[in-house]
């Protein structure tokens, strides 16, 4: 028995004072799960971005003159600024999550109420100025392959097909839900996705607008109704249309089972209308389905 244990604490002093230097309470280090192995000094090198020459997976990005990016910078940007300009334009506020009130601490700390009318909160629409001229950020291409649900090796050709047309290694996508009539089971590989940026994106746009789309006889354009009202526009290409990509056209016997793809243009435009203006300036036609 130590002296400290026998000592009766007065109300005038705190409990901590009499304690030796360690606590029996489990420390709360992190409220989020952290993979400690990834914090090892050995793996610090992996955190360096791929376009840095110190990175192990270094891949130069500025390998050539970028025609599309140059066109945007020199001609399109100032035109879009003027085209989208409105006299006396105000910020159109989006629907935000709402407070429950401030008259009780319970309401104050309660999770915010859902946005009015729309469930999900929407962003504000700012007038177009020099710093928010719509720009194409990246192109997201994804392909769903239902045959891969039964035979997972069939997904290889889907991934390869995307890599072939984009010059970027495609990632596998997995089913997220169990839907019996579609034979979908959680965790089953069922297609591929790839996000392209920079010079690969410019190259893809050039190929699409100059070699592929003009050769599709039934192609009228992207529908005017397409878009997620956040400035991202999507359209689809059928398997028959994909063979017009020169990378696939020259090796048709290597791709016996082509898969249709969904192509999403991710832009910084705040409305679909602005995004459509940007894309049509880049050479993508649009049409009114109604």
């Amino acid at each position, binding site marked *: 028995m130590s002296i400290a244990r026998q000592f009766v604490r007065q109300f005038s002093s705190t409990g901590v004072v009499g304690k030796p230097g360690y606590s029996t309470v489990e420390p709360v280090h992190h409220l989020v799960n952290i993979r400690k192995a990834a914090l090892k000094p050995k793996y610090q090198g992996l955190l360096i971005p791929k376009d840095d020459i110190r990175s192990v997976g*270094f*891949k*130069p*990005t*500025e*390998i*050539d*003159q970028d*025609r599309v990016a*140059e*066109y945007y910078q*020199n*001609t399109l940007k*100032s*035109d879009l600024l*003027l*085209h989208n*300009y409105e*006299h006396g334009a105000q910020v159109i506020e989006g629907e935000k999550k709402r407070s429950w009130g401030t008259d009780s601490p319970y309401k104050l700390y309660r999770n915010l109420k859902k946005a009015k009318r729309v469930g999900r909160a929407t962003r504000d629409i700012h007038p177009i100025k020099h710093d928010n001229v719509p720009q194409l950020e990246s192109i997201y291409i994804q392909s769903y392959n239902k045959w891969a649900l039964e035979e997972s090796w069939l997904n290889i050709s889907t991934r390869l097909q995307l890599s072939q047309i984009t010059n970027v290694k495609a990632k596998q996508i997995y089913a997220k839900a169990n839907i019996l009539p579609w034979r979908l089971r959680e965790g089953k590989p069922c297609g591929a996705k790839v996000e392209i940026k920079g010079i690969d994106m410019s190259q893809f746009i050039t190929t699409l607008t100059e070699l592929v789309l003009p050769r599709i006889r039934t192609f009228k354009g992207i529908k005017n109704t397409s878009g997620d009202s956040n400035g991202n526009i999507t359209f689809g290409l059928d398997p028959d249309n994909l063979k017009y990509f020169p990378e696939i056209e020259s*090796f048709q016997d*290597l791709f016996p089972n082509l898969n249709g793809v969904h192509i999403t243009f991710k832009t910084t435009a705040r409305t679909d209308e602005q995004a459509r203006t940007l894309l049509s300036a880049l050479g993508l036609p649009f049409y009114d389905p109604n």
Partner: protein
Amino acid sequence: MRGLSGNLSRVGLVRAYSTANPTVSSTLILSRNPVITADVPKFEAQYYKYQNELWRRLMWTFPKWFYFREGTLAEQRFRQLNKDPVADNPNIEFPRGRPQIRHKRDRRFKQELKLPKTYKEADELEPAELEQAQDTITEDDLARKIVPNSRTTKADQENDLTSLERKLSRTLYLTIQNGSTWILPNFPEPSSEQVTALHTLAEEGLYKIGGEKINYFNVSNTPCHVYNNSKDNKKEYFIKSHILSGDFQPQDKSMKFLWLTKEELKTHLDKEYYQDIEHLLSEI
């Protein structure tokens, strides 16, 4: 008090230019966009070359086994063109370093592939064949060698400033001669009672002086700039547009016009006028 000072400053502004009401006019910035890629400065070109070589050096080995299946005729042709690199032999000293062969590629260097051509290069042909080849090659022959067109045109060589085909890599602007000075085409409102929209005014004026064989794109009905011409007591609003096809054909024989780049505009335009509109013009 606040309203009073606001009024005073407005009065002062008007007085600085004139006492009479200025004429409203529309100035057209009609530009021809670059047709080909911009000229790359030497340093930039070297930088791209260096990065490109690095990229090629770090590339994965070409999967020959996938694109050229073994035993096929295509693979045979590919093999004839691409000889295997010198194999590593432990009994031999390599003064320039030992080759590191993986999948028939020397990992020390970038991989260079030769693909079968559909045509023959000029140095591969016999003299007799050469003459024959020159006669037989036509524009619609798919197997012909693709040679890019020249970046300089006939208009560049003759220094024809009125041609739309000059300086393909630069933005050109239409300028016309007004008396002794050069200006961007300017069209005043016909009368103060009858008001026409600025972009309509610019369009009608352009067709009047340059003929209707111009296909142009008006960027916006909103003017992008205003120039207070104190000399003529005019307010010039600038309407931006691009010529897409057709040609500017002056209807009046005596009218002089030029298609100029930004630097050339500096020498042609009035100094004060150029400084006012300099920021509207494209560097490229």
